[in-house]
């Protein structure tokens, strides 16, 4: 992590933050609402705060969001096509 990102994380530190497990529990709901009604309409500040602090949870969230978006749009590749992307 670069020093600016970490200073930003220190700045955004709260006394109470949700855990990775709590984040995991909320992510699927968050992703579907984000893709349905838009990011700005969702009031889940504790989840957002955790995603900003935790790169592992954030990467899982971003992957889930992209996967579900492609699936909703009918553009997700099937298994055999995904296998072909592995060199």
């Amino acid at each position, binding site marked *: 992590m670069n*020093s600016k990102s970490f200073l930003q994380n220190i700045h955004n*530190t709260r006394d109470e933050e949700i855990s990775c497990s709590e984040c995991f529990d909320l992510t699927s709901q968050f992703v579907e609402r984000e893709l349905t009604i838009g990011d700005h309409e969702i009031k889940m500040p504790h989840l957002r705060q955790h995603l900003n*602090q935790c790169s592992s949870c954030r*990467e899982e969230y971003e*992957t889930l969001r992209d996967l579900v978006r492609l699936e909703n749009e009918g553009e997700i590749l099937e298994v055999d096509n995904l296998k072909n992307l*592995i060199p």
Partner: protein
Amino acid sequence: MTSPRTNEEWLNDLRASDGTQDAAIGDLRNLLFRAVLFFFSRNLDEFRGLARDEILQLAEDCAQEALIAVMNHTSDFRGDSKFTTWAYKFAINKALMAARHESWKGISLDELSSLSNHTLVEWVLRDKWPVSSSDQSMMQAEVIEVMRDVIEHELTDKQRRVLIMMVFNEVPMDEVVRHLGTNRNAIYKMLHDARRKLKNGLQARGFEVAEMLVLFSISR
């Protein structure tokens, strides 16, 4: 193509005791395998040491682990999303852990968990903070010194090790979890406590982090 099921149908089929369950498990496993391959295909750099067959076998293993996790947690599903969206999380989680482990295997984390005299300075200099005046340069040095003081004297040994590994040496969280034999929640809490101590320590010594960010970002 897997036929779409409602959430209720997924749960009923996965709990059935006849061939219906086998079909549902097969469909679910295929969806989880697809999610794992989706993650792998976006992170191919992490598998540079593996042949194609080994990567595909690792994906199969992740999908199987995810399937077991989903089956063990179906009672936790609250229905606030599609069942498949909820299940994908387990596959992506297993895929990310496997990718990070593959990428970091063979690297000794013991060597990356201690604070050398140069670690902090090198870490700050790596970013090439803009220094347009001697005042800024002096402030940067003071901030480094405060952070070093807090890290050395106010953090617990475990908080210090986690911070040094994850922040200064960019060790992935799941590898720190593996190294310390704990779980993500515990590691996140240690890092959270370390951040709070650093924030309080900087403020107690007259540094507002928000002002530092603004000052240090000038004339980039």
